């Protein structure tokens, strides 16, 4: 067991991915000497050279677009988008080109590209540094979208993402980057749970909490508080936003009859709505209450001085649980 925080775990995972496959390249702004603004690629250029850890010109569409060409050539590019708020200039290349290459070519061509992105708010920074754009990608056929919530997942899931022959949007919970965890780095990649499976973090019988990325920690806090009042909450780390691991969610909701989805992204059009709708379709008669959502509000991301009022916290989750139980 090694103690690593999430960003260190990403760094170690990337190093291991590069060691095990010489076709793996890292691309992005400031990922070389600087090691990225969060240091996720620290030391990797020194170790693997400038041809495998590539500082890109300041152009996101260009980074993703050239990564497509590199992937067609036979490489496995891993892109770092510096902040969630800066991914949009590459949106066309991601949703029109990356997502559809396999489909368009009837399987003849495919793009094993991983697009890493710190996401979510709560770091007290300025505009564009606290976004949650995941729904845009999760609703795009052809992309896989996953989010890690702790060091162990950061370490293994990044390796699974890089190894995946599908393009993967890999979301890293920015404000939890320095959250420490014990990682068994000796385990084998082929034996760790696949990144498309959700994980039941805490078992409970009264209501299911579904979170991902930064809100998993928040859900666990809420579960602890609820336990003190004898309310047994089941906490699920979604891990994969596309595809959704519906069997795991359904099994839980069939048991609890209630669910609350928690994410930082706005409510309208967020992943929570898709989960709620899907649960309604698959276990209509089991639902004792409507699936509820505890999310960021339907506004742009606010100034940092009031971001805490915007972000879901344990209290809001418990209010929602209470509301759900009251049905």
């Amino acid at each position, binding site marked *: 067991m090694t103690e690593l925080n999430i960003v260190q775990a990403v760094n170690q995972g990337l190093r291991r991915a590069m060691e095990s496959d010489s076709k793996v390249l890292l691309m992005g702004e400031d990922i070389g000497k600087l090691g990225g603004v969060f240091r996720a690629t620290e030391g990797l250029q020194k170790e693997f050279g400038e041809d495998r850890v590539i500082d890109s*010109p300041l152009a996101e*569409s260009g980074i993703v*677009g050239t990564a497509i060409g*590199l992937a067609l*050539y036979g490489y496995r590019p891993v892109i770092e988008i510096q902040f969630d708020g800066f991914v949009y200039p590459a949106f066309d290349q991601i949703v*029109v080109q990356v997502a559809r290459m396999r*489909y368009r070519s009837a399987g003849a061509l495919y793009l094993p590209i991983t697009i890493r992105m710190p996401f979510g708010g709560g770091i007290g920074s300025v505009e564009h540094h606290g976004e949650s754009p995941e729904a845009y990608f999760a609703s795009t056929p052809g992309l896989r979208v996953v989010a890690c919530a702790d060091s162990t997942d950061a370490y293994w899931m990044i390796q699974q993402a890089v190894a995946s022959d599908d393009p993967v949007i890999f979301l890293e919970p920015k404000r939890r980057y320095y959250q420490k965890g014990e990682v068994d780095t000796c385990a084998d990649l082929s034996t760790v749970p696949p990144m498309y499976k959700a994980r039941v973090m805490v078992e409970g019988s009264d209501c299911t909490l579904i979170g991902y990325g930064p809100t998993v920690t928040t859900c666990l806090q809420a579960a602890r508080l609820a336990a003190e009042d004898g309310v047994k909450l089941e906490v699920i780390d979604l891990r994969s936003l596309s595809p959704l691991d519906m069997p795991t969610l359904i099994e839980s909701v069939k048991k609890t009859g209630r669910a609350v989805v928690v994410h930082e992204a706005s409510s309208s059009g967020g992943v929570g709505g898709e989960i709620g709708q899907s649960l309604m379709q698959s276990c209509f008669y089991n639902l004792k209450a409507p699936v509820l959502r505890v999310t960021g509000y339907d506004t742009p991301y606010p100034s940092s001085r009031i971001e805490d009022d915007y972000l879901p916290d344990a209290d809001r989750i418990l209010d929602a649980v209470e509301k759900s139980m009251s049905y």
Partner: protein
Amino acid sequence: MDQFDSFVQLLDTNGSIIDNPRYQSTLDAAALLAFYRDMVLVRQLDQQATALQRQGELGLWAPLLGQEAAQIGSARAMQSQDYAFTTYREHGVAWCRGVDPVEMLRFWRGTMHQSWDANLHRLYGYQVIIGAHALHATGYAMGARYSKRVGTGEVGRDQAVMAYFGDGAMSEGDINEAFVFATAYQAPVVFFCQNNQWAISEPTKRQSLVPLVQRADGFGMPGVRVDGNDVIAVHAVTMEALNRARSGQGPTLIEAVTYRMGAHTTSDDPTKYRDGADDELWRGRDPINRLRTYLRAEGVLNDDLESELSREAESLAERMRQGCRELPDPDPLSLFDHVYAGPDARIDEQRREVAAILSQERVN
């Protein structure tokens, strides 16, 4: 500015050779005859496809009429290990990369998104999103560099990439970002811009008041402007640019000045935005006629060869008519193939849904 004040021309509109101190053509009579054949056949291919669209056999077609020299001259400068990325209009390039004309029709008939096997022909499928593929070409060229397939001097090993796009594309951010990346990494890519004077209804001056080739210097790469209707000149400048690329000297921008003699696509009506005068002017600059005049004057081309060629063209057209109608419609269930590498629960469920609908329909 008149776009014709300065460009490389080796064969003038009257079909006579022009000396150029900088560019000499390496092409012998046989090679030029082969180019002539290419141009005649792709024009036939183009006209036949246009006809098939009129007859309702194709959903759409983007004619290359008038751009035969630009496409044949440049694509014939490529080597087999090179790779090309094109727009929806480069049928002549596909032809040179060995794509069967009937295969080309798949995309336009709507039976497949990608008409041919990109890996086999080392040619990416028709790209509709203006400019996007210039970045793919640049990335592919970066790959060649990282794979030590550039500057080795080993014949057949060094690779270059061709990126084809139009005058309108020069305005897209992606094209300009491609210039940035290609120069930053000295990628072996040749940007081949066919300035056919129009982006649908917009003349080139809507995109730029100065010659497009001027853009090259600003990004730190050589730029060359060539008479795009002169197949000999196009071949010569492209050969040099590809050699530079393969030998590790980085990217080049070529502006091939040509003219879209036909409509933008079969759904376009050029009479709404341009008058016949230009068409007239450019008919005099036809890329095929001038080579024909030259080859006949040289005695390389004669009536026998011409009638043989027209027979060949006619059988090509015939093969296209028949092949087009015989193109298999996709299986409706193929809707769900190749969205992801592995199985996906949602997709599988939806496939079952459609399968059920189809079997119902068969019953009724």
